C-alpha cells in the first residue's frame, strides 16, 4: 500500500503505508517532517494535513473530538483532517495528503 504525501515545497513523496497504522505514523515513519506533538492522542493539531479532494468523501467522517482539536490549528480548510485520527486500510491505498504549516513547519 502507498500513501502519497506532498510536502511544504510541493514535492510529492510515495511512501510505504502499513495497514492499521495511522496516517500520522506512516508519514513519520517515512521520514517526512511530522510534529505530532501529543503523540497521536488528538490533543494538539500538529498533525494537521489536507486531504486531496477526490479522497475527502472516502474517509470515515470526523468525530466531534477531532473537529474540536482542529480549532488549535491554522489555515483550516474543508479538506483539513488530523492525520493521527486516520487509520490506513486497504481501501485507502493511494490516499493523497498534503502537509501543513501546523504539521511540518
Amino acid at each position, binding site marked *: 500500500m502507498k500513501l502519497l504525501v506532498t510536502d511544504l515545497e510541493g514535492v510529492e513523496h510515495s511512501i510505504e503505508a502499513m495497514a492499521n497504522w495511522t496516517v500520522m505514523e506512516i508519514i513519520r515513519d517515512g521520514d517526512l517532517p511530522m510534529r505530532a*506533538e*501529543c503523540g497521536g492522542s488528538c*490533543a494538539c493539531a*500538529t498533525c494537521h494535513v489536507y486531504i486531496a479532494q477526490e479522497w475527502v468523501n472516502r474517509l470515515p467522517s470526523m468525530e466531534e473530538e477531532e473537529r474540536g482539536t482542529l*480549532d*488549535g490549528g*491554522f*489555515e483550516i480548510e474543508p479538506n483539513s483532517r488530523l492525520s493521527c485520527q486516520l487509520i490506513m486500510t486497504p481501501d485507502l491505498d493511494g490516499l493523497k495528503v498534503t502537509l501543513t504549516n501546523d504539521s511540518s*513547519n
Partner: protein
Amino acid sequence: MTTDAISTDVIIVGAGPVGLFAVFELGLNDMKCHLVDILDKPGGQCAELYPEKPIYDIPGLPIVTGQELVDALMKQIEPFTPVFHLNQMAESLTKTDEGKWRLTTDAGTILEATVVVIAAGGGSFVPKKPPIKGIEEYEAKSVFYSVRRMETFRDSHIVISGGGDSALDWTLNLQPLAAKLTLIHRRDEFRAAPDSVNKMRELVAAGKVDLKIGQIVNLNGAGGQIESVAVKGDDGETHTIACDALLPFYGLTMKLGPVANFGINLHQNLIPVDTEKFESDVKTIFAIGDINSYPGKLKLILSGFHETALMAQQAFRYVHPDRKLRFQYTTSSSDLQTKLGV
C-alpha cells in the same frame, strides 16, 4: 554565590512526570531539588495536553489519567519538599567561580547547584503563533499571546481569535473595558466551559461582543501598530475588521528554547546521553525523559522513570563526594523510611 541566588543541590529543568519523579530518586539519596517550568502548573504534557486522557502503560497502574498521574507524583515527592519556580523559562546556564551551575530564568530567578537535570520533554510550551505573513512586526506591540495587564486594553478595539477557554475567558474579562470587542472563530461551536460559552452568547445577543465566523488571513497596519485584520468568512468572502489589538489564543506548542544555548551537545534537538548515568557530554548536566537520546530510546514515561534512578546514583557522587553511595530498598531501609516520613 551572589546574594540573590538560591542555593540547592540539583536544579531540574522541566516539571513533567519525569522531572517530578527525579525529585523522589534524588531525595532518597539526600539531594534537594528546585524545579523550573514554563507552565503555571506541574505536570508538563500530562497536565497541559492530555489531563483527562487515560494512560495504560504506567507499571502498576492499569489506567490513570494524565492529571491523576501528576497528582500522584506530587503526593509521592511531598516528603522531599521540592521548590517549584513556575511560569518561568530557564534562560541561561553559566558556571560560577566556585564551579557551581548558575541558572537564570526569564523571571529573574537565580538558582545555583552542583547538578543540573534537563527533563524538558519536547521543550518549552509556548503560544502557537498564527502563520500570517508579517505578524512578527506586531508582536508585543499590538499582537499579544497573553494578557499581562488588562488596563493595557482599556478603550481599545480588541480582536480575540480562537475557540477555547483562553479565548472565551479573555473575551468575558476584557469586554467590560474594551471600546469594542470582536471574537473570531473558524466555526460557530466552541470547545470551552459551557458557562463561558453561554455568557459569551449573551454578550453577543446584547450587542456587546461581535462574533465573526472565519479565519484571519491578513494583518494591516504600520510600525507595529495593527489597524485591521482581514477575515475569510465561512462564506468564502474576506471581510476587514478594524482593531488596535489582536489576541490570538490557539493553545500551546513545544519549542526547545534556550536549552539549545546551554553549551550541551545536541543531536536533532535531543541531548545524547550514556545509558549508565544519563549524563550529557557536559559533566554534572544530566538529561532524562523525552529530551534525551541513546540507542534504543523509547519516549515513554516509564523509560524516563528508569532514567531518573540511574541518574540519581551519579548525581549523588557529585553532590556528596565525601560519602559512600549506599543502595537500599524502601521496603526494608529504616533510613529511607525516615526520609519518606513513614
